[in-house]
């Protein structure tokens, strides 16, 4: 039976050094999955995971257990923050605001069905990682970190409408990528 997050947290707090490694073993693949959504190159994603775990392990003392799943969620937030930091440092992250974006958000609310279930998980994950940086960040923050556009706008220093419109474009771009992929699989 797998150790619960509470047990793992308590073991770490009790000074069980091996519990640190168990935490790494338990969440490293999960962290890698997140990192690859932000940073598609595997080596760069590994750098993100490495930085993340240094941060996780040295600040585990500040983690507050709030039920099963809270540790995983905390890990995910740290990895996401590290990944965003990495993207900001290494990629051109420009959120150019176009006048048309004022009205784009409402018009683009509806898109055609996207058959996510037909795409293997690793491919879908990689597709997100290969979106342009500005789309990628917003998709990750909105879909996986479940941040509202207002909060995303605040974090990235952009307008809320820009976040909404970039998200809509990201959806369309992702839908195109999925379509292309499925077509290539039919050949």
């Amino acid at each position: 039976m797998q150790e619960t997050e509470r047990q793992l947290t308590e073991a770490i707090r009790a000074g069980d050094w091996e519990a640190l490694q168990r935490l790494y073993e338990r969440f490293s693949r999960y962290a890698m999955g997140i990192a690859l959504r932000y940073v598609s190159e595997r080596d760069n994603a590994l750098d993100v995971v490495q930085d993340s775990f240094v941060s996780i392990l040295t600040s585990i003392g500040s983690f507050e257990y709030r039920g099963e799943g809270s540790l995983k969620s905390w890990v995910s937030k740290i990895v996401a923050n590290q990944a965003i930091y990495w993207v900001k440092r290494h990629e051109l992250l420009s959120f150019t605001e176009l006048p048309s974006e004022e009205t784009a958000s409402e018009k683009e609310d509806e898109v055609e069905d996207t058959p996510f279930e037909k795409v293997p998980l690793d491919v879908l994950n990689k597709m997100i990682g290969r979106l342009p940086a500005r789309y990628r960040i917003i998709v990750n923050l909105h879909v996986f970190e479940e941040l509202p556009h207002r909060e995303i706008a605040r974090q990235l220093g952009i307008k809320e409408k820009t976040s909404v419109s970039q998200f809509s474009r990201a959806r369309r771009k992702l839908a195109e990528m999925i379509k292309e992929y499925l077509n290539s699989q039919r050949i």
Partner: protein
Amino acid sequence: MKQEEWTKQLHDRLADYEAPVPHPDNLWAKIEARLPKEFVAPKKKVPPHSSNDSSFHFPHSTFHIPRSSWAVAAVFTGAIVGTVLLWHSDQEAKTAVVALTETAPASMESERSDYFEKSEYPEESEHTETTQKKMRAITLIARDTSMESGEIGMKDCSPTSSLNEDRVREPSPIPAEKIPEKIIRELDQKIVEHKLLRRRHIALSLYASNGFGNMTSRNGVLMSPQMLANYDYYTNDVANRTRSGEVVYLANHEERQKYYQPISIGLSANLPISSNLSLSSGVVYTRLHSDITSIANWFVYDRKQTFHYVGIPLTVQYCVWQWYRLHVYASAGGQADINVKARQNADGVETDLEKDRVQWSVNASMGVQYNFIPQLGIYAEPGIKHYFDNGSQIRNYFKHHPTNFNLQVGLRLNLNN
């Protein structure tokens, strides 16, 4: 599809997605290398009352671990080599300190002791923060090593120790954000190598080995020149054949030899000399057995010879690949076997034989080790060995089969784990 529904579907599909981490052990080693020493010290349970303290503080209480007593034993068993090793380790750590202080920001030294206090890092400069973290990690590791060597009396032996300490206190004003990331990664790599070296402590091996295949030969017995002289040198066919260069064997005379493969049992110690290289030496006992049967006109004369050698191997091991608990390594070296006892049993009569000369050999092998637990592993080393001719008249397996494949299997006890 509505945006909310699209978002939910994508979230549900990938929320728990996990991607494989290539070489997870290597990544862990890198992470561990960047953790302050309180986090990487061997585990030790804190007293029960500490676990009830909800406001625990890293690292001061829970991760303060004293050194392992294994180090003392290691130094005791291999004082000279250990001294060299520790000196090397000490020097390496000091190099890291010097490298660090040449690029570290002025604020770094004052904050070093409070590595864990996140609030001390300025939020507006994340790059600086990360760089400082890394540089502090280097310093802590370096200091850690320096302290370790100090515990066994090495610190004061170094004529440059005080100089290095002064240099630590005089950081250069070069700002951390100007340090290229490449340098940071290189330093990370050095830390990893340093940690791996520190982690690789002395290992003791108990092993057995043997060659592949026994050696059997049958030889005729040559007619002696005195016997040949009894024949008419010009008319006899035997003499003619001898003159033309043919060898002449005695009829119904034969000698059969069976040389059994050598069997060895050894005990060796592995001393790391770098993150990938280690030196191994010890003592090995080898038993060599031969059956010699002489047949003369249906008279059979059996002799059983046994040679006992005590050898001293010296090999260098190179770690080729590591995956979880599995290690693959290559090794090469030489061995000197001293014949300590030679006995012969001829038709039930035991006699001493003249001892063989020192038998030198060289060998190369590939090894695979699997660690059941961090402290204990099993290994197998198939390899090739060549025995040099030692010039003695004693016939044995080494002379008749100088190059052979062998297999060594054993248990390896990793100290300091």
